[in-house]
């Protein structure tokens, strides 16, 4: 027989449990009681601590801005739902105590997905998160994020979840997606308009340049004829005027030809293929007498790596770069250029053209690839300012890049970066 009672010792209460045993089979034989007095202080303190922990945990769960639930994995019946369910779903505590399932409150179209996730959680016991829609008590639909886990408590597997209302986030995402779609459509439309405009401008430019050449050549021809027939009657000043007129028409013709070339490079239909750089280079050098010694010394560091590009455009690039190297040489020094290739290990090949020319100041190295830009003007280095612009446009069309490393008086290292044949 037991009883619980506090003993008071020196004014202090000690909770004890008394367990008594009696000797003898009959009550009449009873003479003494043997009693064990158990001090319950620590046990009661532990009980109080446990109760406080439970109370603190409940308070913590109640403050979470989401619904905490616990369910039986076999029936998926809810065994606990935190009070936040009232705020999030509109169902009070009493409603959940009637043995509801979570799944039955999931939006019809998402129900199978949620059931599958819960079954998977029961089997795999791997924490997971899923987003789906739920139906509130007022029949409105909300989006939720449900982080679920499974754990064995007291030899029983339990499913747990924390459900957070993400309707606002979903709405914002949807608005963002719609805005993004709209923006994309507008960009597509503008790009299309811009392409059309550029195409019109290129066609206009090509047509203008092409049509300019006929009267220009006529002017050039008649000026030359006139000069030849009047040459003996002309004084020195008139002769100088004729010569200026003729050379001006020649320069203008060169310019128009270069503009036509640039436009052609921009508009030409391209099909990029593997190109044998060594063969193309040899053909360029042999076909242009100005690229043969003594005009220029070309040193090719073989083997040159093949590239993926367009043979005609590549030919144009090589001839323009070599012509520049031959033109912009230092006084008293024979022009020379070394050509090599470098594997950039990223399906790219860099083709180097290293000359011993006059070099380019750092501040000019960017603009030389723009149209009509000339760093060195005057009679010593005649040109139209279109050569490197044509190179840049051709490389761009071949999905590559162009650049230069140079310093005044120390030569220039031009490079073309092109896709490798397998890229």
């Amino acid at each position, binding site marked *: 027989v037991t*009883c619980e*009672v506090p003993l008071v010792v020196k004014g202090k209460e000690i909770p*004890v449990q008394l367990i008594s045993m009696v000797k003898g089979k009959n009550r009449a034989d*009873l*003479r*003494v*009681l043997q*009693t064990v007095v*158990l001090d319950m202080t620590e046990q009661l303190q532990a009980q109080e601590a446990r109760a406080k922990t439970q109370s603190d945990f409940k308070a913590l769960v109640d403050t979470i801005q989401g619904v905490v639930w616990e369910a039986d994995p076999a029936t998926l019946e809810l065994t606990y739902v935190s009070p936040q369910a009232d705020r999030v779903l509109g169902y009070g505590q009493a409603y959940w105590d009637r043995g509801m399932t979570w799944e039955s409150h999931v939006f019809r179209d998402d129900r199978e997905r949620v059931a599958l996730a819960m079954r998977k959680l029961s089997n795999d016991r791997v924490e997971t998160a899923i987003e789906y829609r739920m139906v509130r008590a007022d029949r409105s639909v909300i989006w939720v994020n449900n982080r679920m886990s499974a754990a064995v408590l007291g030899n029983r597997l339990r499913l747990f979840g924390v459900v957070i209302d993400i309707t606002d986030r979903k709405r914002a995402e949807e608005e963002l997606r719609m805005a993004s779609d709209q923006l994309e459509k507008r960009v597509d439309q503008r790009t299309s308009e811009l392409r059309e405009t550029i195409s019109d401008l290129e066609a206009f430019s090509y047509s203008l340049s092409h049509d300019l050449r006929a009267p220009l050549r006529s002017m050039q021809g008649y000026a030359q004829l006139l000069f030849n027939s009047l040459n003996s009657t002309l004084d020195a000043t008139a002769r100088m005027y004729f010569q200026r007129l003729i050379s001006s028409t020649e320069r203008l013709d060169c310019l128009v030809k270069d503009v036509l070339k640039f436009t052609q490079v921009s508009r030409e239909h391209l099909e990029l293929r593997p190109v044998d750089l060594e063969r193309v280079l040899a053909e360029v050098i042999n076909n242009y007498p100005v690229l043969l010694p003594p005009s220029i010394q070309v040193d090719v560091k073989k083997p040159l790596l093949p590239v993926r590009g367009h043979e005609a455009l590549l030919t144009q690039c090589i001839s323009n770069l070599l012509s520049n190297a031959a033109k912009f040489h230092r006084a008293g020094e024979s022009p020379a250029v070394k050509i090599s290739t470098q594997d950039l290990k990223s399906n790219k090949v860099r083709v180097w053209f290293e000359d011993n020319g006059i070099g380019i100041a750092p501040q000019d190295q960017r603009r030389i690839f723009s149209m009509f830009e000339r760093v060195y003007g005057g009679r010593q280095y005649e040109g139209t300012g279109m050569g490197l612009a044509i190179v840049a446009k051709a490389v761009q069309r071949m999905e590559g890049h162009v650049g230069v490393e140079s310093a005044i008086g120390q030569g220039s290292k031009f490079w073309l970066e092109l896709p490798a044949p397998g890229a």
Partner: protein
Amino acid sequence: MELSQLRDELDDSRRESATLQSLRQHYAELFDTAPVACVTMDLLGRVLECNSAFLELVGLNAKPAADLFLHGYCVQEPKAGSWNICSEPRELFGQ
């Protein structure tokens, strides 16, 4: 022959007495060194025997010469339904 038999019986009795004494001593030590408080009370609730753990629990160094009652330390009734062995053991056993 009878004398010899009597001597043997006396020897057996002495041995049994010594064994009994030893056992009593052993159980007395066990009782006294038990980690939980143990008391033997009569039907008036008077403590007849107690161990060191009990004395320590009630703040005593040794069992006092005067009568010691367990219910002397109780200031309130045990919880309802409990068997009140502190104050009224005699009544509870119907004696």
